[in-house]
């Protein structure tokens, strides 16, 4: 495998989906394949920014006994997988962060070995002290922006010099395929022009399902995000064993990352 053509990916997964041991196998597959980033979504009862695939997976994970404290245990295991070069991000909704206390959530995330926090409903100017608390723990808050985000909001968001920005390539919710076009490139350039001066990184995603999409985005951005597509692949067909699931996930990631 030629390292330089292995795309930088951020791969999304949900602990306890479809159950704890299977989700551990999924995480191992992602890390083993060499994804640069893993986005671990802590399930919330009311994920109003997610589409049906991720919402159903979150409900299943909650029914399987997900608790926030177990989420941090999960993160710790993933961060400590031998030989891992994968950065761990925790994605969740404001309710979970606020209920634990913003400072405690950040302290627990840092202790577990996370690198980034993605909390879309704690926006930069209504963040309940998230950025400050994260910084104090050496964590990075990754803001999410969309094509309809205005220039003045992009200025506001990047004025805090986030180490990484998550660009959703279209409006709407997770789960449906995004057709890539010139407007995506314009959006990417709008963000990059604000990140490059200080060296901030850009990951983009929403509706990425195929190698062709990754290939098109790879030269433009620092990382490409894969979400619902993997969630779907996990259950279909049902895994025969954890070993097989880990293998399947590693292959899935590799196929998206290389030709």
């Amino acid at each position, binding site marked *: 495998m030629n390292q330089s053509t292995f795309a930088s990916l951020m791969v999304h997964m949900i602990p306890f989906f479809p159950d704890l041991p299977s989700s551990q196998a999924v995480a191992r597959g992602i890390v083993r394949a060499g994804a640069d980033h893993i986005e671990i979504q802590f399930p*919330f*009862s*009311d*994920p*109003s*920014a997610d*589409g*049906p695939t991720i*919402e*159903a997976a979150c*409900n299943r994970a*909650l029914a399987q006994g997900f*608790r*926030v404290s177990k989420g941090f245990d999960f993160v710790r295991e993933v961060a400590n997988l031998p030989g891992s070069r994968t950065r761990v991000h925790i994605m969740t909704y*404001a*309710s*979970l*962060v*606020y*209920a*634990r206390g913003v400072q405690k959530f950040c302290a627990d995330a840092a202790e577990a070995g996370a690198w980034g926090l993605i909390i*879309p*409903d*704690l*926006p930069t100017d*209504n963040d*309940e002290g998230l950025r400050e608390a994260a910084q104090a723990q050496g964590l990075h808050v990754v*803001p*999410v*922006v*969309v094509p*309809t*985000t*205005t220039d003045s*909001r992009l200025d506001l*968001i990047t004025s805090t010099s986030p180490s990484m920005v998550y660009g*959703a390539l*279209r*409006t*709407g*919710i997770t789960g449906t395929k995004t057709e890539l076009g010139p407007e995506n490139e314009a959006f990417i350039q709008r963000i990059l022009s604000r990140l490059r001066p200080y060296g901030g990184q850009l990951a983009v995603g929403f509706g990425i399902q195929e190698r062709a999409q990754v290939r098109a985005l790879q030269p433009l951005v620092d990382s490409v995000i894969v979400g619902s597509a993997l969630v779907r692949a996990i259950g279909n067909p049902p895994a025969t064993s954890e070993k097989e699931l880990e293998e399947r996930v590693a292959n899935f990631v590799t196929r998206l990352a290389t030709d």
Partner: protein
Amino acid sequence: MFETDKPVQGFFGQFGGRYVAEVLRTALDELEEAFVDAIHDPIFKEEYSDLLRDFVGRPTPMVFAENATREIGGANIYIKLEGLAATGAHKINNALGQGLLAKRIGKTRIIAETGAGQHGVATAAVCAKLGLPCRVYMGEVDVRRQRPNVFSMELYGAEVTSVTSGAKTLKDAVNEALRDWASSFAETHYLLGSALGPSPFPDMVREFQSIIGGEVKTQSKDRGFHPDCMVACVGGGSNAIGFFAPFLGDSRVSLIGVEAGGRGTSLGDHAARMDGTGSVGIVQGYKSLFLLNEDGQVQDTHSISAGLDYPGIGPQLAHLGTTGRVQFLRSTDTEALEALKFFARTEGVIFALESAHAGAQAVKIAQEMGPGKNLIINMSGRGDKDIFITAKAIAPQAWKGFLSHEIADMEGIQ
């Protein structure tokens, strides 16, 4: 008619805010601007007032509940008959206001959430009147138990979409409407039905509902009394805040909000958030008091009245409860049914189950206050819509006989 000085407060103490992903940010920023602009425009105000009069049937009457007052032997009880508004509840004041606003800013499609169906019915009627296509999201469980309202919405031409995610009730319908809006806001207005959600909704819904309190002020002055106490039920809080708003600065009036006590005090058996059970949280775009577990996951609720069966409370009422300006009580399912029977028998008025929660506490309070004082209940809705629930609870045998006969009749025809 509107509070034009600072109509959008955004935060009420620590509660409120606009805790949304960036994708909804633009839509909400634009909505705030459009709303503030509209309520300063005499043409918009005139159009709204004319339709409130001609289409909604305002002002709604306020009746002296003479028999009830005599039987209880306490304060004079008045009932603001908000349920006489078109489509049977206060919901239409807000639906009409937002519908006109949507049209004014060039939106060509309306979406809404509904629980019991009252807000859905009001929105569907307004959309029919204004010529706007409308989709109403409604939990699968509610679709099943509120068929008459689904029928009305469809008759008004709305498309009712059954929501199968989560608990399949009101909060899930809100999630689904938010999902729709995240990709459709360029041409679609989300017509939210209570005084909650991300700013500017709590402020906007209060302004469109304040017509209730405004009329009460005039109606009590015309009769030569000043209210000592006002009582309203609280689901999300739109009828209560609209009823209270013009009196918030008037310390002579005590304001009472009544939540759903359901069938018990354990989490899952009620929808009362204000007496220590709710936790401060951020859900569905706003900070307020919610029924959550320690992880911040939203908990199931129960009430005999679908309109009160929601885990969060509007941020302004949460704040007013915290400061003590509004006092909160709860009525159980049984107390609400008893109050419904009481006012039907004494006053010839059938309360909606939601409003009957206010009625139940009002009776107790009137007794404690004693004669010479004046208390006003907001009957936010009339009870026709609840007949499948109330008849089942009050006269199960006769109702069962009727339903079996209906089915036999329909099958005979086929």
